């Protein structure tokens, strides 16, 4: 990941370089986005949506989870308030992401924040926050986001169209284990960010909470676990700070 970053003290990167670095950063995720996007196209048609509605829904929500859950609810004949509310609840996790990004987007113009927000999905958030925190993304931030989310967006929509044209000939994503690469990438990010015991406490408590909260509907367990993990990690940090007021916080480097 760091092989392509400029050395410290080098001249600031050109807009083009930042855009390409963004696209490169989400390239590994294509391994999962391609089969999942194709599966989405198939699922839309088999849920009884028209081709226009399948692609339109995919383009509008820009979220694999919201799209798949939406198809399932429409196929079940759920009422439109239920579908809208479910989409909103699924979006709660994204609220965390955009809140975390607040300190880093001060200089990003308002109209570019629309692009940033629209493209803000799990993968994009995690590659971007890593670079923003390490000070490796300081110039033309909006172009990094454009490259990172643009690549995934265009790929996903192309694959949706491919999936629609394939009809029912596509194999089951879960049966083939094609969902594992994204999980592996998230695990690798966890391991790399795990630099002290407070992060371990946050990870452990979030993991236990999400497993205990599996019965909750609409992914609410994920939101609850994220809150518990963040509170535990921050609580550990605040407690140690109080005990050792002079302890240096300089070497902190979380996720």
């Amino acid at each position: 990941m760091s092989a392509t970053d400029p050395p410290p003290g080098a001249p600031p990167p050109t807009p083009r370089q930042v855009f390409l670095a963004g696209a490169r950063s989400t390239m590994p995720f294509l391994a999962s986005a391609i089969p999942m996007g194709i599966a989405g196209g198939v699922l839309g048609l088999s849920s009884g949506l028209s081709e226009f509605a399948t692609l339109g829904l995919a383009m509008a929500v820009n979220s694999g989870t919201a799209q798949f859950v939406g198809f399932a609810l429409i196929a079940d004949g759920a009422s439109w308030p239920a579908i809208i509310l479910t989409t909103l609840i699924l979006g709660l996790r994204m609220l965390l992401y955009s809140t975390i990004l607040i300190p880093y987007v001060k200089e990003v113009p308002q109209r570019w924040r629309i692009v940033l927000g629209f493209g803000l999905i799990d993968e994009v958030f995690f590659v971007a926050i890593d670079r923003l925190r390490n000070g490796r993304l300081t110039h033309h931030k909006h172009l990094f986001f454009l490259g990172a989310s643009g690549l995934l967006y265009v790929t996903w929509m192309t694959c949706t169209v491919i999936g629609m044209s394939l009809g029912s000939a596509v194999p089951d994503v879960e049966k083939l284990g094609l969902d594992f690469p994204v999980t592996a990438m998230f695990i690798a990010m966890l391991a790399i960010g795990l630099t002290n015991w407070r992060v371990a406490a946050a990870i452990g408590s979030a993991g236990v909470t999400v497993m205990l909260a599996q019965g909750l509907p609409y992914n609410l367990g994920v939101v609850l676990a994220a809150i518990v993990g963040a509170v535990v990690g921050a609580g550990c940090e605040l407690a140690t700070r109080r005990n050792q007021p002079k302890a240096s916080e300089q070497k902190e480097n979380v996720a």
Partner: protein
Amino acid sequence: MSMLLLIIGMGLCSFLPRYLPLAVLAGRELPAVVETLLKYTPPAVLAALVFPAVLTPSGKGIELTLANPYVIGGVVTFAAGMVSKRFLLSTSIGIAAFYMSRWLIG
């Protein structure tokens, strides 16, 4: 027509949570406690996504066994990441371990 309205509504519900904090709050200083909380949110979210994906891959209860390739792949990825601290390397090793154990388990 009503499908079009539904899609627009879903799009807005998906977009607004990601956009509104960026539009309204950006540029303001957040309280120190909030910043500390936000520092630990990414690992907590990742853990919340990863644990069920690994432990309950089929959605039928916890499968913490060596016959679950997601557990094997997950543990190998994590170990490789802790040792190497390199993203693509540990991801590749983990995915290889996952498919190998799937193939062995059959």
